[in-house]
């Protein structure tokens, strides 16, 4: 029957990454600072809009408008979001094919928040050995304070992360006041709570398990690697030599001594393993857990500098380069992704720049299809829908052409001043004088909806059927 010895889930092996200094650490810190400045401060940036919310970036779901600085995106333009997502996806493919898991190592929010949480951990509990000692120690006052302090700080960060996220969807200053006074809507509390909880759990507790077990990107990025892709790799030839790696010891101090004995440059200090946030040994080769954060490069470079040996025992390289071949950057795959990326970006920018400041549609009312008038004329009616996409008023004029003798009657609303972001339905009646000699002037009429004031744009032309009964 059941076998009690088989575990379905592997127990997490705790990882205590050691801190490290170096170029890539500085780069990562720089990216982190920039990302946090943007993420946490953006909702607080104000933007002067005369007739709309004054938050620079606001995704107003109830109002059905996305405000991004000078750009107001309406519901019908939501396909731009699809465009942005497509561009991001292709950008990911492009960069991954060229330089490996750059996204994972430097930009992913999981990496950024885990990094911050580790910094907090390091600041409160100390360096790797201290943290390991603390974990093993019995629960006492010191452990309680240090662990509690870490958790409290994590929670604070998580909470502010949640509040900041929610602030993108509602007015930020109002939100904070409402959250504190208990007046915020249920959705705001839920969103904040959810983001707080996930941030705490993912960055504080789950960490590298998110990348290893949960993240689909992590897995399919590996599928985009080829022999020319930049990877972080241990130079096995140099590090192992003929006889393998060895610690610094008697007769193995200098490079010359080691090379004479056939021992490689790796002094097996284990620094690269200790700094690894996902707990792997890079010297075992490329592994799916590796998020390409490059901290092992910093670690090894520090050791090599210390030994006054050349850097680069662990370095960014490619499989081809490691095997003494040339790394090709201009591969068909790279060029293909590059072309698609450029095209997608160009189309999106073109679409945004040329988007009309207003929309207008015309639909024939088919119940009844036509109306016989007292003087023998024929009338068709239409529903005209106008939508001012601007946050300022604009004047729109409506006229018809293409149907000789036809007149348009909209109860004086042929010229209409639309309030900011107004959507309106209007009734339009088009009538032709009595048909003479059984020849109708046409079966189509074109509505021309043009911006007269407040905006400049190409007139919108809508050709719609004009129905004349048979025998007329």
């Amino acid at each position, binding site marked *: 029957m059941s076998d*009690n010895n088989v575990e379905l889930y592997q127990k997490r092996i705790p990882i205590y990454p050691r801190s490290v200094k170096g170029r890539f650490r500085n780069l990562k810190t720089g990216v982190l600072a920039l990302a946090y400045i943007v993420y946490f401060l953006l909702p607080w940036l104000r933007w002067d809009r005369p007739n709309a919310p004054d938050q620079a970036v606001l995704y107003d779901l109830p109002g059905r408008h996305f405000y991004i600085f000078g750009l107001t995106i309406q519901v019908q333009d939501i396909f731009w979001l699809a465009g942005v997502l497509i561009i991001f996806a292709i950008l990911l493919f492009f960069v991954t094919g060229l330089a490996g898991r750059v996204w994972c190592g430097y930009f992913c929010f999981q990496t950024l928040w885990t990094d911050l949480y580790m910094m907090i951990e390091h600041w409160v509990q100390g360096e790797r050995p201290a943290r390991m000692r603390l974990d093993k120690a019995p629960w006492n006052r010191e452990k309680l304070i240090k662990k509690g302090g870490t958790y409290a700080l994590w929670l604070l960060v998580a909470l502010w992360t949640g509040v900041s996220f929610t602030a993108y969807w509602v007015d930020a200053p109002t939100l904070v006041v409402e959250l504190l006074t208990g007046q915020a809507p249920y959705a705001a509390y839920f969103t904040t709570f959810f983001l707080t909880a996930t941030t705490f759990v993912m960055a504080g507790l789950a960490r590298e398990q998110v990348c290893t077990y949960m993240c689909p990107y992590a897995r399919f990025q590996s599928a985009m690697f080829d022999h020319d892709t930049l990877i972080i790799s241990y130079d096995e030839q140099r590090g192992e030599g003929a006889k393998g790696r060895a610690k610094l010891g008697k007769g193995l101090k200098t490079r010359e001594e080691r090379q004479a004995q056939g021992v490689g440059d790796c002094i097996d200090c284990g620094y690269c393993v200790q700094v690894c946030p996902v707990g792997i040994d890079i010297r075992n080769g490329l592994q799916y857990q590796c998020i390409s954060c490059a901290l092992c490069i910093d670690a090894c470079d520090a050791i090599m500098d210390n030994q006054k040996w050349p850097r680069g025992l662990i370095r960014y390289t490619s499989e081809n380069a490691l095997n003494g071949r040339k790394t090709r950057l201009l591969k068909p795959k790279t060029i293909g992704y590059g072309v698609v990326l450029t095209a997608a970006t160009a189309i999106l920018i073109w679409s945004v720049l040329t988007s009309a400041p207003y929309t207008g549609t015309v639909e024939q009312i088919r119940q*009844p299809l036509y109306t*016989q*008038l*007292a003087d023998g004329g024929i*009338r068709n009616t239409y529903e005209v829908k106008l939508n001012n996409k601007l946050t300022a008023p604009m004047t729109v004029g409506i006229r018809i052409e293409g149907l000789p003798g036809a007149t348009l009657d909209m109860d*004086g609303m042929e010229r209409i001043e639309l309030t900011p972001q107004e959507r*309106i339905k*209007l009734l339009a009646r088009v009538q032709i004088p009595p048909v003479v000699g059984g020849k109708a002037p046409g079966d189509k009429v074109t509505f021309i909806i043009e911006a007269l004031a407040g905006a400049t744009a190409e007139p919108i032309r809508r050709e719609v059927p004009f129905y004349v009964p048979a025998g007329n």
Partner: protein
Amino acid sequence: MSDPTQNAQPKPGEVQTTGHAWDGDLQEYNNPLPRWWLWCFYGTVLFSVLYWIYYPSWPVGESWLKGVGTVDYTITDKQTNQVKEQEFRWNTRSLLAADLSEAANNEKRKAMLAQVKAASFDQIVKDRHMMDFVRSVGKGLFGDNCAACHGSGGQGVVGLYPNLTDDDWLWGGAMDQIHQTLVQGRKGYMPAFGAVLKPEQLDDVAEYVLTLSGEAKPSEASARGKEIFHGPIGGCYYCHGADAKGVPSQGAANLTDKIWAIADVPTQKTLQDKKAVVKGFVTKGVNNTRIMPAWKGRLNDDDIKLLAVYVHQLGGAK
């Protein structure tokens, strides 16, 4: 026969047995339900009891247990037009009513209705927001109350129900005239001339009537018909007017335009057929077939006002 055996505790990798062996080697596995599962089950039992108490549940005789749950929502009394909050028993219908009365759009609707109520007809027509509101609410009201006869688009049925989209109005197409028609209803009436006029005279009148709108060319017959129409024998001009353009206060049709509300002239192919149709109505008259019910009392004043504006925008006179 069963023998209790000593060793009922399982070894690693084995399943616990009930501790009895029948016929020497027949044993029964003991797979008790997990404790958490049992507690969940007891929880659902408790839940169902509370559910019976709170919500409508068991049938009892010809009724059912109503449950203690209630829903509050505001209702508008159709007769007195008073708005009041009332408590109702919980059921999905009152839940829907509560949802509707509390929805954000309902507040907007109420505000808009108040605006329309306070405005004059002229003001409503000139305000596109009010017109937008009238068109969307009016469509529903029209569909519920008027479309059965007049058609969903107000196109009517020739001979029976007037077309509301054209510009020929028997009872007047101004907004207040339409409003009056809705409030008090109308009854179309034309006397039968079959007993008054001779068949030839009826033919002559029919031919004259057709010349008025250009359906027939003037002839000797139409000249004779003209005399009957405008003379004391027929006296048609009493109602249709000396110019034959109709009199809205009588509901008399305009005979000079291209619109035929009762006699279906336009679809007839030959002059003979057209004459026959017109003659038929002159002979038999119109009585008890064209009745518009009065809507006062059936609809509240606001709805009638909305409908008047809605019908006017369908094709009412300027």
